[in-house]
């Protein structure tokens, strides 16, 4: 079993001057390729911090984070940017699209920051269009975010997350702002991506959503409290 990502005794402390907040206090976890895992926990449990570290947005105080075979725990800012660009696809609760760009341009944004800054060619543009069609946006690619519904915006975000063919997809409450019908559509897309072999790590606090994952990690007070892999059938 090949690992997409793994955490080993990961600690993250925030020094607030008078107190030191220990957000992660020794977390170890393995995410095999093709995994679909939901991270759960109440607010303050450390799940957001874990997601930030997994996403290369934050550095652990100590411990190891191995992503695609590289230990990325202690990389500098520029290297982390590169990791985020090449190995991680983000899907946010609030979509986080750039408002002045069309859907297609939003999908292309990660291409602008590829190492060496190659120009975006015909082939890449077609790939972006294909991705847009794959998430069901075919006729809306020239729309700007304010012209799109929440579900459509999240589809753009999913296409954008896939554009550099990342090692893992990190979804932070991907359906948190959506109604239940749209939630179902988005989850169906994530299911399909996972079946195609994508590794998905999703943070959520909704039990029904978490049941779509293959397994669940429950966090509490900066530690993994328990894991379960019951399926929702």
């Amino acid at each position, binding site marked *: 079993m090949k690992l997409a990502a793994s955490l080993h005794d990961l600690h993250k402390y925030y020094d607030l001057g008078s107190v030191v907040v220990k957000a992660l206090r020794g977390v170890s976890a393995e995410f095999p390729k093709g995994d679909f895992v939901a991270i759960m926990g109440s607010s303050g449990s450390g799940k957001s911090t874990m997601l930030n570290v997994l996403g290369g*947005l934050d550095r652990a105080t100590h411990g190891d984070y191995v992503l695609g075979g590289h230990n990325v725990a202690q990389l500098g800012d520029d290297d982390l940017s590169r990791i985020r660009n090449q190995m991680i696809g983000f899907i946010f609760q609030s979509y986080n699209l750039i408002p002045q760009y069309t859907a297609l341009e939003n999908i292309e944004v990660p291409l602008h920051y590829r190492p060496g800054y190659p120009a975006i060619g015909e082939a890449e543009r077609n790939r972006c269009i294909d991705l847009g069609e794959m998430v069901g946006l075919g006729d809306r690619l020239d729309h700007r975010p304010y012209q799109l519904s929440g579900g459509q915006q999240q589809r753009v975000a999913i296409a954008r997350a896939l554009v550099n063919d990342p090692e893992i997809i990190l979804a932070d409450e991907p359906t948190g702002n959506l109604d239940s019908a749209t939630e179902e559509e988005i989850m169906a897309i994530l299911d399909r991506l996972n079946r195609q072999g994508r590794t998905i790590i999703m943070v959520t606090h909704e039990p029904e959503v978490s049941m779509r994952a293959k397994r669940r990690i429950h966090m509490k007070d900066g530690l993994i409290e328990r894991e379960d892999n019951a399926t929702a059938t």
Partner: protein
Amino acid sequence: MHLSRLIRTIQLALKSLMLHKLRSGLTMLGIVFGVFSVIAMLAIGEGASQQAQDQVLELGAMNIIIRSIKPPEDTGQSGGGNRSRVLSYGLKWTDFHLLDKTIKTKSKAIPVREIVQEARHLHRSLNVRLVGCTPEYMEVNHLELSQGRFLTDEDQQQLTNYAVIAHETAQELYGIEDPVGSSILVGGASYQIIGVTRPRTASAAVGGSLSGQDYNKDVYVPLETLRSRMKDLVIRVSAGSFSAEEFQLNQITLLIKKREDVIPTSDVVRESLLLDPDHVQKKDFAVVVPLELLKQADQLRWIFNIVLGSIAAISLVVGGIGIMNIMLASVTERTREIGIRRALGARQIDIIQQFLMETVVLSGIGGIVGVLLGLSTPYAFLGIQWFVEAFVLEAGSGDSELARIFSDMKPQIAYWSLPVAFGISVFIGIVSGLYPAFAAAKLDPIEALRHE
């Protein structure tokens, strides 16, 4: 940086700026006016100094001009009881011969004598400047003839009583009559007119020791003729008092062969003339070196340009502050966008480049518009002149001297100021963009993503 990436960064910058057209336009306006005022100020300064330079050049850069000056009153002792005393001063023929013989760097030495006299023709009269001169006078003073000929060496030798009169003299005394061939009475002596000069613009006063000269009311006669007729005495009767002055020459002009000899020669001239104790005592001559004046004018021009340019540059700095202000607001406003870009893989340097490019594009376009506006300065100024003359002066502001200076002003674009002003505007764009760009890049991506 690859060209494709550069183009992409510029496109990105344009796109962001186009999002807020009014805001970008107003910000740009600060730079536009800054660049425009730098160019316009320098053009006005350049125009003024060009006029000063032209005046000096008119005197001839290769010339050394030695003028007689009236000594200060106290050395003349022209007290009440001393009115019969003849004031004797100025350059003498001996000075001329001395300079003519000893100064080897000159090609010519030209003596001139001028007296203001009344000229008559029939019943008409006019106060003219009677100039005793040699044939070279015409060339040195850029005179041109409209009729007849100028004086020749033969006229000098034969003491002919020929005269060449200036344009205005001819008009005043002869009207539509053809003056050539008629006679003119100047200071009681009669001369026959052989030529008329064209109108010439008056030369302005230069350097204090050389007053302005109006060449249009002149009568030119051979110096030798004048000398033989008038001797060296000038008698003036004014307001009941009577004064007599004795002097021989008003001016000696030396034409120097090589430019680099001009200034050393002028020192030699001064020293040679001061060998005569009369000159030492009376301080009755002045040496004017147009080349020296030219250098002074050049220095003055630089000071002028620097002062005017700096004043204008302040407005550019104000424009730069405007840019910084807007960019800081823009960074705050687009914190979320910065967070998104960082999460998707933008490095800090990418963010810096993005924001810096926005300010560079902003100030660059502003700079180009400012340069184009600046190019129109002379025409814009003509419009202002017309407006002021038509409405402000018409209303009778009364300050005619100021009005004259104003209408004589002729801005001249200093072409070097175009790239300089543009360069400064881009430089200011970069400087004022640096802080906002770094502030944007330093944002913590997690915080930035959370920003509402």
